[in-house]
């Protein structure tokens, strides 16, 4: 593997932004259908960062949150990386009522924490899977996923490890902000691609755009 910084053109960023926009729109529609919620979408943002800059970038993006919940899931294919779905702490509790888990709601003896975690996992799995899956499909790839894991109520500075990615490698960071209508919940989805994916991604973006030349 090479350690030099990759270059990504503005046009490639634009295509990636549009592809993430389409993919997150699909994910939102899937979630809306599953749990009867309306997701307010925003324009995604694309950044190219060195691995060493990534922890500080994420901490800075999350500076307004005192406590957060993160659903983290890795995706593997030619399109490869990690997805971080970030909610303010307590979002899971807000979302619990939306999910018909088929279980009786018992909010005693710490079970609320388990239910909150399950809710975040469910929402995270759906949003991340649908978004990453659609991006991979548009780019001509098929990805597999690690099981999602959730970390609840840690301060962002504690939750983001300094060695998230190799410090010399390039990561493409895609961020989209969303909120749930009629619920006091908003969050971010970050997709961070690995260095190995970048060249493949550039070729795939070029192929995607060729359809429209």
């Amino acid at each position, binding site marked *: 593997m090479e350690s030099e910084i990759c270059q990504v053109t503005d046009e490639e960023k634009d295509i990636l932004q*549009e592809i993430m926009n389409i993919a997150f729109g*699909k994910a939102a*529609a899937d979630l*809306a*259908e599953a749990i009867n919620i309306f*997701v307010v979408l925003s*324009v995604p943002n694309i950044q190219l960062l060195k691995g060493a800059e990534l922890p500080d970038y994420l901490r800075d993006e999350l500076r307004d949150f005192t406590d957060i919940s993160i659903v983290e899931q890795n995706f593997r294919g030619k399109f490869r990386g990690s997805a971080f779905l970030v909610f303010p702490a307590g979002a899971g509790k807000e979302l619990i009522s939306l999910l018909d888990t088929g279980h009786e709601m018992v909010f005693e003896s710490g079970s609320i924490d388990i239910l909150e975690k399950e809710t975040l996992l469910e929402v995270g799995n759906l949003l991340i899977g649908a978004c990453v899956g659609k991006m991979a499909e548009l780019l001509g790839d098929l990805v597999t996923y690690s099981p999602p894991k959730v970390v609840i109520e840690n301060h962002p500075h504690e939750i983001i490890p300094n060695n998230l990615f190799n410090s010399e490698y390039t990561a493409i960071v895609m961020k989209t902000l969303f909120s749930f209508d009629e619920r006091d919940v908003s969050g971010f989805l970050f997709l961070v691609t690995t260095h190995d994916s970048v060249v493949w991604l550039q070729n795939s973006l070029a192929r995607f755009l060729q359809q*429209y030349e």
Partner: protein
Amino acid sequence: MAKKILIVDDSPISRKMLKSCIPAECIKEIQEAGDGLAGLKVFKEFLPDITFLDLTMPVMDGVQALEEMKKLDPEAVIIVATADVQVKSIEKVMGLGAFHVLKKPPTKESVREILLKVGECRGTEHGI
């Protein structure tokens, strides 16, 4: 007869993709705008026959722009071209008078199909 077409979308790539899907024989002139407010300004001056309008945009979003455009011209043919394919979003814009919703990414087929529908409603071919 070819038509005047307005594309309102904050993404230059998205506008390029859509333009490439519109049959050449349908185009008399195309103008573009990068947000809802700019789109509204062009809409007033250009008087397009068909407007393609994105929803998620800075400055003024597509829903607001759609409302304003329909106030200016209740008969305006406005096709919402969006990645927001939630049922509630589609119902909302259709309720506000959008002619149709074009799901992103556009294809030559999906655009042609919609233009044919415009044509059927206007009694012409290909919306022209």
